């Protein structure tokens, strides 16, 4: 089967895609780290007898999941940059991964907003 080698993106657009991939490669582990740290902090609070630490665990999980989705997005953007002739698929995959990450951040935001609101009422 013949492989398509033509690209639809200009060199400038390819550079942009490469930058997006690099940015996602840096952002993803940081989100993962921030999420894991929240889980650890929640664990420490629980260990010290503060059951409020339980509330930090789902938030940390969501942040870490967003990090994982961004990591997938980094690979997709790299494929979009490197593999010529299959731009459509890799573009949609990149959008999908970023969409998943931001859906996790949406749930994280709603959860944190709810907790913050309850804290203010107490």
């Amino acid at each position, binding site marked *: 089967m013949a492989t398509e080698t033509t690209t639809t*993106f200009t060199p400038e657009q390819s550079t942009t895609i490469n930058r997006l991939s690099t940015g996602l490669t840096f952002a993803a582990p940081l989100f993962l780290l921030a999420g894991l740290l929240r889980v650890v902090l929640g664990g420490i609070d629980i260990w010290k007898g503060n059951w409020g630490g339980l509330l930090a665990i789902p938030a940390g999980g969501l942040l870490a999941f967003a990090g994982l989705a961004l990591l997938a997005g980094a690979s997709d953007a790299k494929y979009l940059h490197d593999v010529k002739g299959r731009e459509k698929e890799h573009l949609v995959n990149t959008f999908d991964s970023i969409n998943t990450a931001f859906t996790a951040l949406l749930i994280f935001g709603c959860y*944190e907003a709810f907790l913050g609101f309850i*804290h203010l009422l107490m």
Partner: protein
Amino acid sequence: MSATATDNASSPLHDYLVTGETLFVTAAVLAFVSDIALTFRSLVALNWIGLTLGSLFILGTLFFINWLYTGAKEARMPAAIWAGLQIAIAVIGVYLLLNKTFGWDYRLYKIGAVLPQALSVPSDLLGIFKAAAYGMFLYSITQRGPALFYLRHKGGEAVEVPSPTTPPEDVHPTGTVLPLTADQTQKANGLASALQMAGFALMTAGFFGALVGGQRIATAPRFGWLALGEGIVLLVLGVIALAPVASVRNIKERGTDTAYIGDALTKLGAMVNKLVLLALVLAALGVGGLILRLVKG
């Protein structure tokens, strides 16, 4: 309105310009009125420093409105900085006034009794009004919309004639189309919606988080500052998430020309670069929390 004098009264361009001028003038008048109201309060409950500074704010705002109204491109950056400064002053004043009411941090009581009045923010409600009015003003002169379109058009810049299907953007199609299916373009639209909703959710979370952090500063200062920092980071994260929404949505609304896809990827890239910085701060705050917990035993 001046737009009526130069353009065909029945064209969509004319309508758009009138909307833009109306929005610009409304935002400018609201900002101006907020300063008048606060300065008047400084006059009633006489505070000479507040009165002088308030009068300077009024004159400064008038100067920038007039400069912007000429359509001069070079006026926008200084005017945006001026609006940002006014927002910062209003926020500081309101925070100090509310601190006195809610007792977030007793160490700020002393400065809170003097500084808001000296900054010409003697009322928390009027201060909130000022921050919102200047926020609207800042938005109208920096974000692509009818008001900025009007200013650019007035300044003689080349701007695309807007219509519902071709909003005023600087992106021009190249003619190279990436043939996406309806399902695939729908995914781009889904991403735009996810970014938008996440942006609003994170901004709300950040706002509440910052308030909770502010409250905690009085009882547990270090944890309070960390929570306040996290709240601010989430707030900024929310604002940043909104930046690429319009460009990503263009793929569904304007077509799959590589110019639009490239523009969406550029905006996403710019957003991700800022995300790196914010995620770094978020992780650093997490490390700070960890150290505090371990040190405190």
